[in-house]
C-alpha cells in the first residue's frame, strides 16, 4: 500500500464512492422487495377476509312474513280428533298461510296471480306452524300470529342484491283505463313518464355497450371453433382413408360443428338486440318496448301495481300485477325500476310486486337471522341452518380428541422418555414425520378402504370421521408433545430419580405435568386443524344431505366445513351469503380455539 501514489489513491476512493452509491441503491431495492412481499401477503389475507365478510352481509338479517292465521278446523285438523299426531301428519298448514295471504289480496285469484302471491313463502316454511298447533290444539278455531321466512330470492331482492331499485315519485293523479285486449293504458297530466324514459334510455345504451364487448369474445371463440372444424375435417378425411376411428372423428366433428352453429346464431341474436337497444336509446321507433329481457318498470299506487310493457313520456301500456282497491284515486303513485330483467332472476315481477305491498303494509319485516342457528340443512336456502352440521362437528371432534390426545401423548412419552435408541424407534420416528406431511385426502382413502369397506362401519358416521381425523392429527400431537417434553430440563428427571422415584414415577409425576401446557397447546391447535378439515371426510361419505340433528356416533352426520362446501356448490344465489356467514362462524370457532391455545401458552409457559 505504501507504494500507491496519491493519484491512484484518490481514484480508488472515487471508485469506491461511486460503487457505494450503487450498493446502497441495491440495498434499498432489496429492502423494498421485502416490504412489497410482506405487504402483498397482508393484502392477500385482508382481501380474503374482507371479501368473505362483505359477502356474508345479506345473510345477517332475514325478512320475515308476519301473518295472522285463521286456524280453521277443516285445514288444521281434518281428522277432527284434536290428536297431535293427526294434526301434524294430516293438517294443511301451508293452506292456512295461503288463506291469510289471499285474504290480504282478494283479487289475486281472479287475476291469475295466486301462484305468484303464494311464492312469497315456500310450503316447507309452514312446517313449524304445524308443530305449534299440534303442541296446543286449543288454538284451532282461533286466530294465531305467526312469522315465517320468505322466499330466498324475494328476500335477496328486498335486501337489494339484484341491483339498486330506482323509485321515481309520480306527479299528479294517475289515470288507468282498461283496454280491450286486457292491458291498461296509464297516463297522467302531461309527460309524467319522461324521467323514467330518460333513465331507461341510458340503461339500454349501456346494455348495448356491454353486449358489444361480449361480441368480441364470441367472435374469437367462433374463429377458434371454425379452425377446429377445419382441423377435425382433415382428421376425419385421414381417418376415412385409413378406415380407423371414423366414428369417433365424426362424432367430434359433429360436436365442433354444432358448437360453431350455436355461436353463429348467438352472435346474430346479439347483433339484433344491440340494434333495437341502440335505436331505443336514441329515441327512435316510438314508445320504448319493455320485455322480460329488459329492466322491469312498475307503476305502483298505494294498493296496486302495474308492469309497463311499452313506455312513452306521456302514455304507457301496462299489465296488471296487483289489482288496486276498487275506486282508488291514485294521487300517491311512483315508478319503480328494477335493473335486473325478469329473465335474469329467479323471482318474477308479480311476486316482487306482492312482496313490496306486504312490506309497505309492515307484514314483511327484517330481523336478525336466527334460522341459520336453529335449523338444519334444507333444500330451501331461507330454511337452512347449521345446527346438524354443528352437532356433527362436535361429535366428530369428541371422537378425535378422545382417541388422538391419549394415544399421541402416550407415544410421545414413550419415544422421548422410555424407548431404547434402536432401528425400530428410528423407524417409528421417520414414520411419524412422514405421516405429518401425507396429504389429508390419503387419510380419507385409508378411511374408505379400511373402515368402510373392510370393517363395514357405517358411512357418514361421526365415529369413522373422528377416527380418520384422529389418525391425521396424531403426528401433529406427537411432534408437539415431544417438543414440550424435550423442553423440560433433565435436572427435573435426575432430581426425581435421585430421591428414589422409579422412571415411570419421575415421568408421570414430574416431567409430564411440567410439559402439560405445551402438550395441551399442541393438542388444541391440532383440534382446530381437524375442525377445518374437509377432504378426508368427503371420502367417507360425510358429504350428505343431513336434515336431522345426529344423536349418536353412528348416525349419519356432516360437519361444518363439509356443509359449507356443499352450500357453496348449490346454484341458488341465496346460498352464497349463507355460505360466507357459515365461514365466519367456522373462523370464529377456530380463532377461539387458537386464542385458548395462545392463552395457555402465555400463562403456563416456563423458560428454564
Amino acid at each position, binding site marked *: 500500500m505504501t507504494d500507491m501514489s496519491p493519484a491512484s489513491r484518490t481514484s480508488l476512493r472515487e471508485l469506491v464512492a461511486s460503487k457505494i452509491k450503487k450498493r*446502497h441503491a*441495491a*440495498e434499498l431495492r*432489496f429492502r423494498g422487495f*421485502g416490504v412489497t*412481499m*410482506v405487504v402483498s*401477503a*397482508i393484502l392477500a389475507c385482508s*382481501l*380474503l377476509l374482507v*371479501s*368473505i365478510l362483505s*359477502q356474508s352481509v345479506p345473510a345477517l338479517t332475514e325478512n320475515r312474513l308476519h301473518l295472522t292465521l285463521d286456524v280453521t278446523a277443516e285445514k288444521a285438523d281434518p281428522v277432527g280428533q284434536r290428536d297431535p299426531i293427526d294434526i301434524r301428519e294430516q293438517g294443511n298448514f301451508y293452506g292456512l298461510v295461503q288463506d291469510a295471504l289471499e285474504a290480504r289480496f282478494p283479487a289475486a285469484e281472479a287475476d291469475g296471480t295466486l301462484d305468484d302471491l303464494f311464492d312469497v313463502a315456500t310450503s316447507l316454511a309452514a312446517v313449524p306452524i304445524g308443530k305449534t298447533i299440534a303442541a296446543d290444539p286449543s288454538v284451532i278455531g282461533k286466530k294465531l300470529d305467526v312469522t315465517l321466512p320468505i322466499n330466498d330470492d324475494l328476500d335477496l331482492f328486498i335486501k337489494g342484491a339484484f341491483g339498486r331499485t330506482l323509485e321515481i315519485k309520480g306527479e299528479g293523479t294517475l289515470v288507468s283505463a282498461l283496454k280491450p285486449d286486457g292491458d291498461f293504458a296509464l297516463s297522467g297530466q302531461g309527460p309524467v313518464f319522461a324521467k323514467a324514459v330518460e333513465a331507461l334510455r341510458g340503461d339500454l345504451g349501456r346494455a348495448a355497450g356491454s353486449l358489444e*364487448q361480449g361480441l368480441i*369474445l364470441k367472435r374469437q*371463440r367462433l374463429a377458434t371453433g371454425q379452425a377446429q372444424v377445419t382441423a377435425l375435417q382433415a382428421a376425419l378425411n385421414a381417418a376415412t382413408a385409413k378406415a380407423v376411428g371414423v366414428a369417433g372423428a365424426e362424432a367430434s366433428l359433429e360436436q365442433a360443428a354444432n358448437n360453431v352453429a350455436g355461436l353463429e346464431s348467438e352472435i346474430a341474436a346479439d347483433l339484433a338486440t344491440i340494434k333495437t337497444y341502440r335505436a331505443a336509446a336514441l329515441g327512435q321507433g316510438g314508445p320504448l318496448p319493455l320485455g322480460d329481457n329488459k329492466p322491469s318498470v312498475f307503476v305502483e299506487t298505494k294498493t296496486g301495481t302495474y308492469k309497463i310493457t311499452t313506455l312513452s313520456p306521456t302514455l304507457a301500456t301496462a299489465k296488471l300485477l296487483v289489482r288496486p282497491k276498487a275506486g282508488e284515486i291514485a294521487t300517491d303513485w311512483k315508478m319503480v325500476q328494477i335493473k335486473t330483467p325478469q329473465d335474469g332472476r329467479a323471482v318474477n315481477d308479480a311476486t316482487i310486486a306482492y312482496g313490496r305491498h306486504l312490506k309497505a303494509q309492515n307484514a314483511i319485516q327484517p330481523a336478525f337471522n336466527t334460522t341459520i342457528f336453529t335449523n338444519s340443512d334444507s333444500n330451501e336456502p331461507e330454511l337452512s341452518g347449521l345446527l346438524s352440521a354443528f352437532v356433527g362437528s362436535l361429535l366428530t371432534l369428541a371422537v378425535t380428541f378422545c382417541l388422538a390426545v*391419549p*394415544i399421541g401423548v*402416550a*407415544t410421545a412419552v*414413550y419415544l422421548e422418555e*422410555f*424407548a431404547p435408541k434402536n432401528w425400530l424407534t428410528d*423407524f*417409528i420416528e421417520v*414414520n411419524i414425520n*412422514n*405421516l405429518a406431511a*401425507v*396429504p*389429508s385426502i*390419503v387419510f*380419507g*382413502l*385409508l378411511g*374408505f*378402504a379400511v373402515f*368402510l*369397506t373392510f370393517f363395514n362401519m357405517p358411512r357418514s358416521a361421526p365415529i369413522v370421521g373422528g377416527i380418520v381425523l384422529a*389418525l391425521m392429527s396424531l*403426528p401433529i400431537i406427537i411432534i408437539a408433545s415431544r417438543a414440550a417434553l424435550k423442553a423440560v430440563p433433565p435436572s427435573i428427571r435426575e432430581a426425581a430419580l435421585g430421591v428414589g422415584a*422409579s422412571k*415411570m414415577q419421575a415421568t408421570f409425576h414430574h416431567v409430564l405435568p411440567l410439559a402439560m401446557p405445551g402438550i395441551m397447546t399442541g393438542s388444541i391447535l391440532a383440534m382446530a386443524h381437524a375442525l*377445518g378439515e*374437509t*377432504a378426508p371426510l*368427503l371420502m367417507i361419505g360425510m*358429504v350428505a344431505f343431513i336434515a336431522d340433528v345426529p344423536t349418536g356416533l353412528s348416525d349419519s352426520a356432516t360437519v361444518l*366445513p363439509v356443509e*359449507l*362446501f356443499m352450500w*357453496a356448490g348449490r346454484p341458488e344465489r341465496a346460498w352464497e351469503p349463507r*355460505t*360466507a356467514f357459515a*365461514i365466519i362462524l*367456522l*373462523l370464529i370457532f377456530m*380463532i377461539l380455539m*387458537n386464542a385458548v391455545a395462545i392463552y395457555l401458552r402465555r400463562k403456563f409457559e416456563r423458560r428454564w
Partner: protein
Amino acid sequence: MQMFAEFPIGLLTALVILTFGTWTWRDATRRANSMVGAGQGRLHSLPGYHGWYGALWVVGPALSLLLIHDMTAQGSIRALLQTGLSPQILGLSPDRLDLFFADARKIAFGGIPSATTPELTAAAASLKSIAGGLNVAFSAGALLLAGLGFFLARSQLGRDFRARNAVEACVRAFMIVAAAIAILTTAGIVLSLLFETLKFFSNYSPIDFLFGTHWSPQIAIRADQVGQSGAFGAVPLFLGTFLIMLIAMVVAIPVGLGSAIYLSEYASVRVRAFVKPVLELLAGIPTVVFGFFALLTVAPIIRALGTAAGLDVSAQSALAAGLVMGIMIIPFISSLSDDVINSVPQALRDGSYAMGATKSETIGRVVIPAALPGIVGSVLLAVSKALGETMIVTMAAGQNANLSVNPLDMVTTVTVQIVTLLTGDQEYDSPKTHAAFALGFVLFIVTLILNIIALRVVQKYREKYD
C-alpha cells in the same frame, strides 16, 4: 332371551364393571393403607399402586371381552343362525343368502325388509333370541371375569407384592401399543392403496394409466351410450396438477421467502409482532374457505380482467386455483424459512459486516447460501402440500380433463378426480373406485419421496449449526 336383543345390556354391564373397578381401586388402596397402619412394616409398593393393580384386573379383561363381543357379534350370530336353518334356505346363492340375513335382521330390529315370508319371520325370531342370548352370555362372562380379577388381585395383595412393577408394565405396554399405531397407520395406508391399485391394474394396463392422454372415467351403463369408454389415461391430471402447483409456487416462493427474509433480517419488533400473527391466521384458515374465496371472488375477478383484455377465460381456471393455493402456501414457506434463516449463526453475519458488506449483500452472499438447504427443504415440503391440496382445486379448478398448459383454461387435478370418483353413489368394487386408489397411490408415492428428501435435507442442515 328376545328382550335382551335390543336392550343395551352390554353398555350397562360395562358401566357396572367400571363402577366396580372404581370401588376396587378404593378398596384395595384402603386395604393396603390399613396394612401399613396395622404395623406390618413398609410395603414394597405405595398403597395407590395396589389400588390400580386391583382396578386393572377388574376392568381390563372384562372390558376386552365385551369389546371382542361387540366386534364379532355379527359374524357369530349369523353362524349360530345358520345351524338352525332348513337346507333349502342354506342352498341359496351367497347373494340371496346375504339378502335373507339382511331382511331377517331388518324384521328383528325394525327396518323395511324387501320381503316378509314365514321363513323370514321365523328366522327373525330366532335371530333375535340368539342375539339376546349372546348379549346375556357375554355380559355374564364379563361380570364373571371382573369378579375373578377382583379375587385374584385381592389374594395377591400383601406386604411384599410388587404392585408398582405390574402397573408400570401395564402402562408401558399401553405406550408401546400407542407408538405402534403410527406404524400401523402407515402400513394401513400403503396396504390399502396397494391392494386396490393392484386390483385396478389387473383390469387396466399401468402403461395406459401412467402415459395415456385420455381421461374419461364414466363407464357406459347401457350399450348405446356414446363417448363413455371408461378411459383412464392420467396424463391430463398430472399435467393439470403440475400446472396449478407451478402457479402456486410462482406466487408463494417470492412472497413467502421475501417476507421471511424481511421479517428475520430487517423488521422491527413491532412489525414482526403485527405480521407474524397475520401469517399465522392465514395458516389456520381451512382450505375449504380458500376454495370458496377462489370460486366466488378470485375467479370472477380474473374472468372480468381477462374479458376486458379480450381473452377467453373459463369460469373455473387453473390461474384462480393456483393463485389462491399460492396464498395458502405463503405462511407455510415463510414460517419454515424463517426458522432456517434464524438458525444461521450470528457470527457468520458479523463476519460479513466486518468486511464492509451491506445488509443485502450479507443476506444474498452469506445468509441465503448458508440457509439454502433448509430453504430448499421447505420449498419441497410446500410443493408436496400443493400437490396434495384438495379443496381449493375441487371447488375452483373444475372437472374437465383438458390436456392444456394454458392457465386460463379449465384443468383438473389428481385430487379433484379422487374426490369425483369416490363421492356420489357407486359400489365399492368398481373400476372407478379402484382408479381413485391408483391415483391416490401415485400421489402418496410422489409426496412421500418429496417429504423424505425434504426432511432429510432440513435435518442434515439443522445438525450442521447446532
